[in-house]
């Protein structure tokens, strides 16, 4: 009931051009480089009249930018960091939006003998044992956090191997994939970035389908109590749209090379 009321109000306020706002969305390279945001944001803008400006960086940097007040809404993928952001009062509330999965990509020659495995932790341990070159984001992004969690589950101390077989690029997903192609390295990537990536050069998917490779995206409005200048209403309209039937259908409807890349799972 309340939700319906809020949605209606958002619709009423959004419909008039005089109420149209410009909001800054701090998001990740995976949602932008895959083309998802380019595909769905025009639908939101047409429905509400608001304009969305996307700053695509790693999840860690996106959260820091939002904490500084340099954004109205966050769309990122690192649940623990997102919940901390809300718990510390920087965000209003976190909502699930969609998911996809991570995959372990590596040289088609498969030097560590892990191709076809569905156990990513064992596969990573095998890469470490074989001293197979691994390219890490190393940039505190959502993918980097997920990768470090998997290494810790595998009981591998990658810090000690840094500069040797473990190479931290400190760059975005695309730059890291370019680097991995150049070095014929293993790399953990989200499936959307991989599918959209145009320079695969000798790399292929080696491990996929492990439940631990689940990749959840969440959306959070920046708290107007901390940053009074934020466009709180427009940010809420964005969240309502993304987690509502229209946005969820738009996410499900986005595909690349005939393949759906993001799966809506908002809890509404």
């Amino acid at each position, binding site marked *: 009931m309340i939700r319906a009321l809020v949605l209606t109000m958002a619709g009423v306020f959004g419909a008039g051009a005089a109420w149209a706002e410009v909001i*800054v969305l701090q998001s990740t*390279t995976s949602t932008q*480089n895959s083309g998802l945001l*380019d595909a769905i944001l025009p639908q939101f803008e047409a429905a509400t009249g608001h304009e969305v*400006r*996307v*700053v*695509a960086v790693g999840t860690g940097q996106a959260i820091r*930018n939002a904490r*500084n*007040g*340099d954004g109205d809404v966050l769309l990122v993928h690192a649940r623990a960091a997102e919940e901390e952001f809300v718990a510390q009062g920087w965000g209003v509330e976190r909502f699930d939006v969609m998911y996809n999965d991570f995959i372990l990509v590596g040289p088609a020659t498969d030097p560590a003998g892990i191709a076809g495995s569905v156990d990513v932790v064992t596969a990573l341990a095998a890469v470490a044992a074989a001293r197979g070159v691994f390219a890490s984001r190393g940039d505190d992004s959502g993918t980097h956090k997920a990768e470090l969690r998997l290494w810790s589950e595998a009981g591998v101390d990658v810090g000690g191997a840094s500069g040797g077989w473990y190479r931290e690029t400190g*760059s*975005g*997903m*695309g*730059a890291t*994939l*370019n680097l991995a*192609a150049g070095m014929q390295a293993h790399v953990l990537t989200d499936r959307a970035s991989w599918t*959209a*990536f*145009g*320079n*695969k050069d000798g790399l292929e998917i080696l491990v996929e389908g492990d439940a631990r490779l689940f990749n959840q995206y969440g959306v959070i409005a920046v708290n107007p109590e901390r*940053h009074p*200048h934020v466009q709180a209403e427009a940010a809420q309209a964005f969240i309502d749209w993304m987690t509502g039937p229209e946005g969820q259908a738009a996410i499900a409807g986005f595909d690349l090379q005939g393949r759906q890349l993001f799966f809506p799972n908002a809890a509404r």
Partner: protein
Amino acid sequence: MLLSLRVSLLAVVFAALIGLPLGAALAVGRFPGRRALIILVNALMGLPPVVVGLLVYLALSRSGPFGVLGLLYTPTAMIIAQVVLVTPIIAALTRQTVEMLDAEYAETLRSLGVSRLASVPTLLWDGRLALMTALLAGFGRAIAEVGAVMIVGGNINHVTRVMTTTIALETSKGNLALALALGAVLVILSVLITGAVSMAGMRSASQEVRHA
């Protein structure tokens, strides 16, 4: 492409408004700390763009001192960052040019009763061809720069995405052919502008010779 030109040209204009008088003052002025200031300006020519981007981000962030202006992620923020990068280049090269001319003409100008300060416009006008090269050097720095504008502009499509950040984005998508093609366009653009300015400079120089 037009945004790239608009941002970089405006940055050079503002940097020239600061850098030309600053460089000239360093050349003809006589005040304590002048030598140290000259060294500083020369050193600032090597400012890393990414550091400038970070500093301007911290200044313009909503949590920073100028956050209330709401300039972050706008072309204005990109112009500010490029002005910071380009001003030392224009100031340092101006200082050098004007100082050489001053050494040449100081006696004549003094004998005509022109003070050191009043001689600045004359010296700047006399050195305009060399100063054009200083402006071109600044423009080259601005149009080719990616680190600072990426941070303070945010590479927002249709708002703050310029040639260099587009090339960086397409490279990160693995679209290397497209990135290379855009790079070629940027280089051609730069050559055309530099060439046009240089030709104009050479023509006016040869006309002067003919008049003389």
